């Protein structure tokens, strides 16, 4: 048994060739010594490749509208996680907090006498 086809099948070999070309560009770009070029080659192209796979191989563009919404909501949760946690991980200190406990003491009581041991 099979369900009736809900998709139009494009030329998959052509899409695969584009993906391979993008892979080659990202590898060549990674050899650059310019940081921005490496980042664009790595992550910009990864986003384009993922879009091509999702659209043409997974046919997400012809799926019921709520399917992409469901996936986008899951991605949104990840961004919320990142936004909420990343300052604690990526920064050494912030407003009224520091990863170094001695700095916190110094900030909370700037005029407190310094202990000499």
């Amino acid at each position, binding site marked *: *048994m*099979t*369900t009736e*086809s*809900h*998709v139009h*099948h494009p030329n*998959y*070999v052509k899409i*695969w060739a584009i*993906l*391979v070309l993008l*892979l080659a560009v*990202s*590898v060549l770009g*990674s050899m650059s010594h310019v940081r921005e070029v*490496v*980042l664009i*080659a*790595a*992550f910009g*192209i*990864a986003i384009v*490749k*993922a879009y091509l*796979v*999702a659209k*043409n*191989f*997974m046919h997400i563009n012809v*799926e*019921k509208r709520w*399917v992409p919404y*469901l*996936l986008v909501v*899951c*991605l949104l*949760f*990840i961004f919320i*996680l*990142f936004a909420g*946690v*990343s300052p604690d*991980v*990526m*920064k050494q200190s912030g407003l009224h907090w520091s990863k170094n406990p001695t700095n916190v003491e110094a900030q909370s009581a700037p005029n407190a006498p310094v202990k000499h041991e």
Partner: protein
Amino acid sequence: MSASAKPIANTRSVTGIPTARLITWWVIASEIVIFGGLLAAYIMHRIGHPEWAEAASHTNTWAGAFNTLVLLTSSLCAVSAHKAADAMDGPRAAKLLRLTALGGLLFLTIKGFEWTKDIHEGFVISSGGFWSFYYVLAGLHGLHVLAGMIIMLIVASDAAKNQELQRVECIGLYWHFVDIVWIFLFPLLYIAR
């Protein structure tokens, strides 16, 4: 087996799409949270620890790139199997699914050689933050590749007899998702240094 005796996943589509495909999308949604959470954790730690660049420089970009090529090619086979299943050509779909699984095996073999080399050089999961993420991310992804291969071979054995052809698309969706995860793992672990 009559159509009425088939599992509900094959026959019901109250949401507008067949339930089997619906379940696959839910699996993919949950996988987005699993891999997304790990990737987000890796990215924030990587930005917070510029010194990890030295550890990342030991990964083999060419091996990663070749594995990307292998997975992209296996995805082409999977979607071609879906096309064959839509044309009710079960034997061809089965052949293409087995080819896809072979791509997965090649991927895992290359990964195995890569890990063996890394471990021999002293880079193990406890060697530092970067290596912990490297082994967990690539290892979890490898487990998904292995699971996909096993399911794909089971689906192929039915498809070869022109049975349960709707499953070809479902396992294909899962495989493409695994491919997308690697598309992001490759630059994160092999390019960004």
